[in-house]
């Protein structure tokens, strides 16, 4: 038989043409880059070959990954790593490639890595380690995979945990701070005797702070908080009050152990979307209430005591004066009736008796006045100091005449004061000026005033910085005194001269100081031995707001 016909040949040619055209097509496709790869049968084993373009795509993927990617040999040599990884380590890529992965791991985690690397040589493994480079420690999560059979390497994907770790640390820090805050809060509640609560209006949940439980006489979290339970602590007499919507309320509770306490509750509503709550604090104000009560009672007591003292002082002084009067009456009588029979000596003795009783009388009066200054009802009113001075000088009319004294008056201000007390003040100062005159010299008394500049007010420790002051000076040309005694003389019963030299009780100047003090002012003296003295009285023009002014 013939093996090939022309038909067969034609058919074969067609077949060849087809195959040629296909091959040509393939070559064209390769040339134009329309194909990326091909699979081919090689010695019965199929293999895939990748052309340039495709390889590029993979490279781009690995490089642009948001994770680290490495290719490691079985010995751990890094034959490839992507830029993410080298950037993570802070090292140039060229340095990383070619180094051993073990050198880039911290001592603490190296052993773990080695264990997992060994596992990965057979398959795959995942673990957490810490990388170390440039003194940086980088916590990472790694995934190791053997790339067998295609490659005799291990691929490693690296996920940076720094952020995660950082966040974890932040959470721990926050938790720690929260703990501390809670401790402080609990302590603050204890110190302030406050207990607080939170009432979620949506869920109906009620929560009490530990201290609220304690304030109720219970152990923290001893019972489940509820409004009904709270009501059982309220004092029966005060239960009504709580029906009003309390925003701030004071009422009594009876604690678990029977103590009656005063609670002041303050509440606030929180109305955020999704969160409707009432938060409140209960403050144990028992000490305050008790103190206020105690204070009030003590004040009433004090008023009573003062009243009694006042009465006592009046009566006592009167009763004390009586016998003195008798002494004076009868010594007078003695002298009068037995005038002819009395020797000069006897008369002298009788005079001494008289003088003593008179002095005693004065003393009693002065002491009475002095005590009155302390707790008299202090009605301040508009007081013309010029008028007070004139009245005082009138009182001393006779003495001024007798001593041939001259008085120079300056213009004195009008101030808010207690007229009677100012009267006494002026009386004492003028009296002293006249009394302590130099023998043989006519007393000259100069009274003037000036406004105190603010620096002087500020520098003076006894003056009220909020008020304006006038300084009235009483200057005399009398016997004066040594400046070193200038403060002493204002002490009660202090005298610089003996009774024989100059009469007086020693109370006068103490009284002056007390009066000045009553008016929020002060008094001081300047003098020289045998060269006159000046007394400076500082009085405010107006009294401070808390004083009663008529």
């Amino acid at each position, binding site marked *: 038989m013939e093996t090939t016909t022309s038909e067969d040949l034609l058919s074969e040619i067609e077949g060849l043409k087809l195959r040629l055209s296909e091959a040509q097509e393939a070559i064209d496709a390769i040339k134009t880059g329309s194909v990326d790869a091909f699979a081919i049968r090689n010695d019965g084993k199929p293999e895939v070959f990748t052309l340039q373009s495709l390889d590029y795509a993979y490279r781009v993927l690995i490089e642009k990954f948001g994770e680290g990617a490495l290719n490691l040999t079985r010995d751990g040599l890094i034959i490839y790593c992507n830029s993410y990884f080298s950037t993570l380590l802070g090292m140039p890529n060229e340095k990383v490639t070619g180094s051993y992965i073990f050198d880039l791991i911290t001592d603490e985690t190296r052993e773990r890595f080695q264990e997992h690397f060994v596992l990965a040589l057979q398959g795959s493994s995942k673990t957490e380690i810490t990388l170390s480079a440039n003194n940086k420690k980088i916590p990472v999560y790694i995934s190791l995979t053997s790339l067998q059979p295609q490659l005799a390497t291990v691929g490693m994907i690296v996920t940076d945990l720094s952020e995660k770790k950082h966040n974890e640390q932040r959470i721990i820090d926050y938790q720690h701070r929260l703990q501390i805050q809670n401790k402080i809060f609990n302590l603050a509640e204890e110190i302030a005797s406050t207990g607080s609560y939170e009432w979620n209006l949506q869920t109906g949940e009620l929560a009490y702070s530990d201290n609220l439980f304690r304030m109720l006489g219970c152990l923290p979290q001893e019972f489940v908080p509820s409004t009904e339970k709270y009501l059982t602590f309220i004092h029966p007499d005060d239960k009504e009050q709580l029906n009003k919507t309390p925003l701030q309320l004071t009422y009594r509770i009876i604690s678990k152990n029977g103590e009656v306490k005063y609670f002041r509750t303050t509440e606030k509503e929180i109305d955020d979307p999704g969160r409707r709550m009432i938060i409140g604090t209960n403050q144990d104000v028992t000490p305050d209430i008790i103190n206020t009560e105690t204070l009030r009672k003590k004040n009433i007591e004090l008023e009573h005591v003062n009243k009694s003292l006042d009465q006592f002082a009046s009566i006592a002084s*009167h009763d004390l*004066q009586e016998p003195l*009067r008798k002494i004076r009456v009868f010594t007078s009588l003695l002298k009068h009736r037995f005038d002819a029979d009395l020797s000069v000596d006897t008369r002298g003795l009788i005079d001494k008796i008289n003088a003593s009783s008179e002095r005693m009388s004065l003393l009693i009066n002065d002491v009475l006045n002095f005590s009155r200054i302390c707790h008299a009802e202090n009605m301040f009113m508009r007081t013309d100091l010029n008028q007070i001075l004139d009245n005082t000088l009138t009182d001393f009319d006779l003495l001024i005449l007798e001593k041939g004294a001259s008085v120079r008056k300056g213009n004195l201000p009008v101030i808010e004061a207690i007229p009677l007390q100012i009267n006494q003040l002026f009386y004492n100062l003028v009296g002293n000026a006249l009394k302590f005159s130099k023998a043989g010299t006519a007393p000259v008394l100069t009274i003037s005033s000036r406004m105190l500049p603010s620096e002087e007010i500020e520098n003076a420790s006894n003056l009220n910085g909020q008020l304006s002051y006038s300084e009235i000076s009483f200057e005399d040309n009398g016997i004066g005194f040594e400046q070193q005694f200038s403060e002493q003389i204002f002490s009660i019963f202090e005298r610089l001269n003996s009774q024989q030299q100059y009469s007086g009780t020693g109370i006068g100047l103490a009284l002056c100081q007390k009066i000045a003090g009553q008016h929020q002012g002060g008094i001081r003296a300047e003098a020289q031995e045998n060269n006159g003295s000046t007394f400076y009285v500082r009085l405010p023009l107006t009294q401070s707001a808390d004083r009663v002014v008529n």
Partner: protein
Amino acid sequence: MKENMTIFIADDDEDDRNLFVESAKELNKDINIITASDGQEAMRILKDEHSPLPDYIFLDLRMPRINGRQCLAEIKKEERLSHIPVFIYTTSRDVNDSIDLGKRGAVHFISKPDNPTEIYYILSTVLDAKWDQS
């Protein structure tokens, strides 16, 4: 001076009473003086219709049982006594007392003098003057 003048004094202090009586007698030995040592006794005597109506009444302020102020009030209420000039004779030197008692009807306020001889002069002035009760 009126003949057979009667003056009444109420004072709890014996010495003061005696000095007063002495001085009054010195002024006019025929003066009739009625004394009482406390307010209660004073009112008993004054209200007694049998005792002579005094021409002048002197009252101490501080007396036990009923004090001078109260006596003054009672005297002013008594129709029989209300026209009699009442003098307050006291140790008090309080101006306020003087004003107050003046308002209550006392015609004069006399502070007991230290010098007993002054009582004489006071009385002579007081008893001689005409006291208008209106």
